[in-house]
């Protein structure tokens, strides 16, 4: 693995404040995600229709550039998937599998670029996910960039001591198992320490309190109900007609 892929490029996306979906209830956006996850099971022709509608939604939500950026990051995975499926099975399968991955990647960017981890946590709480798990999920979500940074720092630290081959030598030979150990052991140690530090910090501020009362509120408005109804109707039409 080369870290040039992630250098100076955060994994998570910046919030798109201008998007109308930024004001939508996270639960409505989760419903959109659920709908899209069901849509990937549609046959090719219907999936193509759904993709068209989804593109229109992205244009309306001013999220087309964000989704395109996210898909671009997956270009090699998508290309490999397409070629393998085409060579191993058929062109039809290659197209449908690639479209499915595209759709899932796009819908992920739709949610993460319009929802803060705090809003996401609150939505999970309202959906009766226990607070302990909702908190952990949102924390993991906001720590993705941090983990990427730590991985990069470990890579550089090991390269500087000669434990890993430099860039030119890396191209000449594949990394050995020992090189991976040099990366993964410190990564596990740092991640474990970070997890422990977070546990301490959270407990020192009353994480386990039975009296917890959320400060922020969520409310489903007309936009949210419209989104939920729209995705439900679309899926129903594409499945049953």
């Amino acid at each position, binding site marked *: 693995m080369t870290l040039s892929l992630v250098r100076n490029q955060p994994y998570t996306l910046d919030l798109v404040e201008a998007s109308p979906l930024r004001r939508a209830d996270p639960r409505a956006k989760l419903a959109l995600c659920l709908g899209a996850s069901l849509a990937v099971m549609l046959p090719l022709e219907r999936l193509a229709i759904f993709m068209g509608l989804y593109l229109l939604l992205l244009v309306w939500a001013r999220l087309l550039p964000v989704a395109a950026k996210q898909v671009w990051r997956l270009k090699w995975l998508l290309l490999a998937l397409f070629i393998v499926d085409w060579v191993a099975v058929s062109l039809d399968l290659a197209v449908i599998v690639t479209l499915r991955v595209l759709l899932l990647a796009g819908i992920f960017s739709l949610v993460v670029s319009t929802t803060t981890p705090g809003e996401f946590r609150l939505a999970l709480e309202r959906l009766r996910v226990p607070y302990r798990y909702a908190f952990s999920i949102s924390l993991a979500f*906001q720590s993705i960039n*941090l983990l990427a940074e730590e991985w990069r*720092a470990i890579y550089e630290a090991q*390269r500087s*001591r000669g434990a890993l081959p430099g860039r030119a030598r890396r191209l000449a030979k594949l990394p050995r198992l020992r090189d991976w*150990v040099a990366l993964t052991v410190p990564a596990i140690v*740092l991640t474990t320490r970070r997890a422990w530090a977070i546990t301490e910090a959270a*407990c020192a501020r009353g*994480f386990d309190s039975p009296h917890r*009362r959320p400060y922020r509120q969520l409310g489903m408005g007309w936009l949210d109900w419209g989104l939920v109804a729209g995705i439900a109707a679309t899926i129903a039409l594409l499945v049953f007609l």
Partner: protein
Amino acid sequence: MLTVDHLAYRYPSPAQDRGLDLQALDVQPGQCVLLAGPSGCGKSTLARCLAGLIPHLYHGELSGRVLVDGHRTADTPLWQLSERAGMVFQNPRAQMLAATVEDEIVFGLENLGLERTTIRDRLEAVLDRFGLQALRKRAPLYLSGGEQQRVALAAVTARHPPVLVLDEPLSMLDTTAVEELVAHLADLVRGGTAVVICEHRTEPLQRLPGLRTLPLDQAGSCPLAPAGVPAPQPVEPFGLDVSHLDVRLGRVTVLDDLGFRAAGGQVVAIVGRNGVGKTTLLRALAGLQPHRGTILAGGQRPDLAMVFQNPDMQLFNATVRDEILYKVPDPDMHWYDWLVNTLGLCDYQDTPPLLLSEGEKKRVALAIALMRRPAHGLLLDEPSLGQDAAHKAQLMRLACSLAQAGRLVLMTTHDLSLAAQADRLLLMTRAGFVADGPPAEVLADREAWKEAGLIVPDWLPEVRP
């Protein structure tokens, strides 16, 4: 308010820190106690005992008792204790839980079960008090160290705990951030909060009202290098020449047309506020950071070994010996012996490096860097971070020894007492270096320090040219 009675604690694994023994401690409202002592003497362990994290999160051997506001920590649920004793940890970045500063503060208030209006009032009050209004929507993880520590303190004090415990809160801060934090702590003490601080850097805390210092034992003092070990082999004289150095991280220009020269045989300290690009400069010098401009040592690419802030990023071998010798072609065992002797690692050669204390790990990282015998010298990124006075003295002895053998030692530091011992001091801002010269001259240049946004504290001992 806070009472400790015959407290003793041992961690479940003997390889972990040495534990703690404390006969008695009593802190009343409006009092401030400084727990001072070398690395490994149990300061952090005591802080965790006072906040109740021990025994609730750590399952070692605890005897004696700690009472917080009349509640025995061992018998009271942690969430109840957290309402009475707030804790601020050493690494401000590691304790950030939320996506925005506002949410970071709200997190602790929600857990108190307060009404929304009360939470809002306390949030606004604490944002005003700690000067965080402009940062309220920012991500805490991407603030400077000083700002993060202010957020951490704000998040804890918003809960109005009658007792506040701080574990090495100054270790990662520059002098300006230290002064700000001490001023906030002084306000809290005057407001009636009982404050307990565990810290190596004791000088800045001396102006806290009614400060009482409680020295812990010297169990953790580090071994000194034995006499009679051979010095490193001298190298040919050379000069490091950095010119027109540009570094961009994404859209941000971190270093812009930076240039300086340094001769081998010097210890050079670089001081500047958090975020001015000190670490980026070291990474560029080590060949780890893509850049524009030229970096040459004696007309060729420099061979400088870098020691990082966090030693955990490099350690993975089964023993200290394997770690230091890993992938070193034809290791010179005399050099190895000199390193382990000088760095006080003789007794740990067969110990897994991950089980060592932080100070010991840092010395292993230093040995790793030097075992490669870098031709031109050493780059040290915040070498004194979390180190006690004995470790710092040991580090400076090593740096001077390398410099005497003609190598260049370049270090970034917030610790002005360490920087004052260098041969040369560079004061760095976002625009480049604003002062350069012997520490005595640079420390006396008040205008340059003002331009750098830093202060030279009164407690810094006078440095003579």
